[in-house]
């Protein structure tokens, strides 16, 4: 099936097999490899994309469910979004596998709450796992982005 949607700010047609997860469709044809497969059951957050600005697990969504909606991956964040920059500044990663999902979740949080408490940051990022254990630096990056 062909699914029409807005992908990273542009109208796009996504070719997808029936019953295929958005995760797989995004990785195959547009080649958005920042959307990362891991658990396949919506637990780890590595495949997080923004659906109309809200973080969702792309592994749990059918491509067809994204029809007519706005999907944002880390490539589609505005250039002036402070979150990616502050992740770099705070060195908030080791391997970087979880980073795109972390950035999207954090960016969505800061749009909703420009000055979140540490507790709210931890709560918001609770569904994004980091196997390297970089959580303190990730929290630091979000704090910096909030005050940027």
């Amino acid at each position: 099936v062909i699914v029409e949607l807005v992908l990273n700010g542009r109208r796009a047609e996504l070719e997808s097999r029936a019953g295929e997860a958005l995760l797989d469709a995004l990785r195959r044809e547009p080649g958005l490899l920042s959307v990362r497969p891991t658990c396949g059951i919506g637990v780890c957050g590595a495949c997080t994309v923004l659906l109309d600005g809200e973080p969702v697990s792309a592994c749990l969504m059918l491509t067809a469910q994204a029809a007519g909606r706005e999907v944002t991956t880390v490539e589609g964040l505005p250039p002036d979004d402070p979150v990616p920059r502050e992740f770099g500044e705070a060195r908030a990663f080791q391997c970087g596998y979880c980073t795109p999902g972390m950035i999207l979740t954090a960016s969505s949080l800061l749009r909703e709450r420009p000055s979140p408490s540490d507790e709210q940051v931890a709560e918001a990022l609770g569904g994004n796992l980091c196997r390297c254990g970089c959580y303190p630096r990730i929290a630091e990056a979000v704090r910096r982005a909030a005050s940027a």
Partner: protein
Amino acid sequence: MGLGTALLEEVEYADGQVTNANLSDYGVPATRDLPRRLTHELIERDGAESHGLGETALPPVPAAIGNALYSLCLHLTDLPMSAERVLAAADAREREAVPQAEAAS
């Protein structure tokens, strides 16, 4: 971090099959599992080689947490020091404490 090794992670089997093969059943630390405050010290030593360090390769962390529990008379010798094992150690501590209390009365 080392917290996962210390507190949460264990591959479980039943009839030769792994029963916690995905992250829904095999817990790894998330943001809410972290202590509020975290301090560490890097010690320099002549001739020491640097090597990578990640969640699974941080031996001092389980030892530090084990010693903290031991300071409360909770003696755990198996990893992970899961909530169930800590509870069992607390029960064992109670059982050992009761005869002493009776002896005192």
